[in-house]
């Protein structure tokens, strides 16, 4: 067999195949429910209801989507340039640490939020700068270095929480002191449990979209990602573009941690992120790296998680079904997207 480019793929193909991928994922979900001895339709219904069934459920889903939008954007921006930033998890924690350092009394009121947001972005950017410089200067593969940095960062957070950043009132739990009220992100609507981090995430998505489609940097990022040799030949400063991409990506990922601490939790603990950095990869890929699509897929992915938690409590199917479904969706989707552009032919 051989793959052949389809000159003008039909609309049915472009929409139908990704839809088929989602349907197939649904099929896998039902199969897993059957394996777990539950009624497949009941399980799907419970996931849907758990994610969207009530005002409370919807707010929970949107809250859960907020860090995923940020990490999804971070991955989408980087992958566009074929910069394989798998270190969003570490950059997220860098942002969270900054939120605690600046938010627990070091800075006075009106300044604290914008300053700590900016500083968090810088911290995340700085964390990705190392791997990207190793890539551009020495040719060290950034996949492995960013992955390894995730583990180092988690150990660093653990050290901070057991040492210098430990909450003296924490009754022995490894967590940081609480943020002062001025350093907390307010709720969007009083009385509804949804903080401004969500709004900021959407603003960030729009901003990334504008950068990608309207600016020279966006043009350069796309060109470098698709064909660095041609970009270099045309006079684009390929390495500088990669560094700028890294700064943007690392900064966005850091905002995820910053908004979780400042918006939701109010303090830092080592279970702040249940793998938001890695899930960001799924969010970005499902969105085909489109920044506005990231918002949609992040809410979808968050819904699966929130819904699965609720379903698990009711139906007894392990919550890890959510992780399996998302990984399956990722693999089905990349295959479906390929087949919208190529077809399999004999010989």
């Amino acid at each position, binding site marked *: 067999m051989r793959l052949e480019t389809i000159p003008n793929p039909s609309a049915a193909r472009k929409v139908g195949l990704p839809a088929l991928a989602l349907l197939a994922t649904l099929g896998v979900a039902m199969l897993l429910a059957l394996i777990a001895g539950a009624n497949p339709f009941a399980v799907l219904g419970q996931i849907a209801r758990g994610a969207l069934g009530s005002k409370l459920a919807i707010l929970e889903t949107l809250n859960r989507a907020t860090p995923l939008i940020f990490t999804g954007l971070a991955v989408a921006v980087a992958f566009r340039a074929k910069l394989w930033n798998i270190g969003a998890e570490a950059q997220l924690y860098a942002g969270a640490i900054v939120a605690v350092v600046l938010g627990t009394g070091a800075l006075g009121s009106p300044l604290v939020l914008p300053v700590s947001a900016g500083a968090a972005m810088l911290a995340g950017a700085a964390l990705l700068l190392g791997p990207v410089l190793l890539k551009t200067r020495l040719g060290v593969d950034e996949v492995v270095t960013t992955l390894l940095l995730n583990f180092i960062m988690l150990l660093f957070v653990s050290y901070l929480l057991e040492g210098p950043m430990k909450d003296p009132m924490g009754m022995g739990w490894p967590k940081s002191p609480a943020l002062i009220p001025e350093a907390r992100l307010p709720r969007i609507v009083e009385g509804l449990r949804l903080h401004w981090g969500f709004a900021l995430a959407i603003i960030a998505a729009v901003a990334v979209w504008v950068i990608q489609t309207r600016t020279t940097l966006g043009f350069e990022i796309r060109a470098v990602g698709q064909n660095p040799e041609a970009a270099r030949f045309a006079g684009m400063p390929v390495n500088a573009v990669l560094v700028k991409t890294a700064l943007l990506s690392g900064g966005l990922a850091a905002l995820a941690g910053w908004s979780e601490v400042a918006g939701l939790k109010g303090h830092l603990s080592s279970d702040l992120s249940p793998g938001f950095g890695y899930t960001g990869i799924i969010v970005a890929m499902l969105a085909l790296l489109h920044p506005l699509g990231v918002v949609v897929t992040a809410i979808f992915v968050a819904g699966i998680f929130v819904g699965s938690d609720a379903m698990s409590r009711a139906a007894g199917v392990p919550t890890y079904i959510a992780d*399996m479904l998302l990984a399956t969706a990722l693999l089905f989707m990349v295959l479906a997207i390929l087949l919208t552009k190529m077809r399999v032919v004999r010989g």
Partner: protein
Amino acid sequence: MSEIVDILISASFWAAVIRIASPLILATMGELICERAGVLNLGIEGIMVIGAFTGWMAVYQGMPLWGGVAVAMAAGMLFGLLHSVLTVPFGLSQHVVGLGVTLLATASASFAYRLMLPQVTSPPKITPFQPLYIPGLSDLPWLGAALSQTALTWAAFAVAGLVAFTLYRTPLGLALRAVGENPAAVEAQGLSVTGLRMGAVIVGSGLMAVGGAFLTLSAFSSFFFEMVNGRGWICIALVVFGAWKPGKAVLGAILFAAFDALQIRLQQTALGAVLPYQLFLALPFLLSILALILMSRRAEVPAALMVPYNKGER
């Protein structure tokens, strides 16, 4: 300082080094085969998890230990099949597919564990492989203690030898080395690029899974979720460090294991009282990054690594 010397000359230290190196050697050989054939397999971390889980679960369900190893290998090969179908004939991004396979394999292990053992709070134990008594060798002073290892460790070294022999001494190895360098050369000589690459990924994934199973069947006696803990990523660094050569990669794994064994022991010394233990735990990861930096631009990367081959491409 003398404490460190004491550690370095003790037989128990070297026994630990060889034990720690064993799963790394197995998984590194697996990754090396894949990469020599031109496929980067980022599924390694998850495949090690699935190997650790399935091997352990098989034994927990009453299979013999070697049966557990076989089950782990089969499970790894299954995920290798998934990886290779997507990356070889379909030529999808090896980065994305590899991460997807890692996420899927890890989630599958967690899901199955929770499903099969819904109630347990502390993970149940099995009876793992015991150190092998080798007449003559095991009675030697010092060496006998250092080489007091399980059969799976001996198997790891045998696998490394087999991989090296196959790569450099057989027509199959010749074809593997060629397909990672220029798949068109292999195709023009009547061999199947798809077959060789898929085979390499499937067999390599099987070895990774056995590396994972080593953790549950030989090193520890139970399965817990975070047990692989980045070892897969470290193995990818070891392949680079070993310049895609089995011998050098084994040496790298041993060197690496030595540092790991040392940091565990240093934690018990005066140094451990001064420095936070997290620094010691971070050492393997820092070391891996250092290894990557040292070997950058020196090693000869297989020229077609991460380049999909589509014979119709014009």
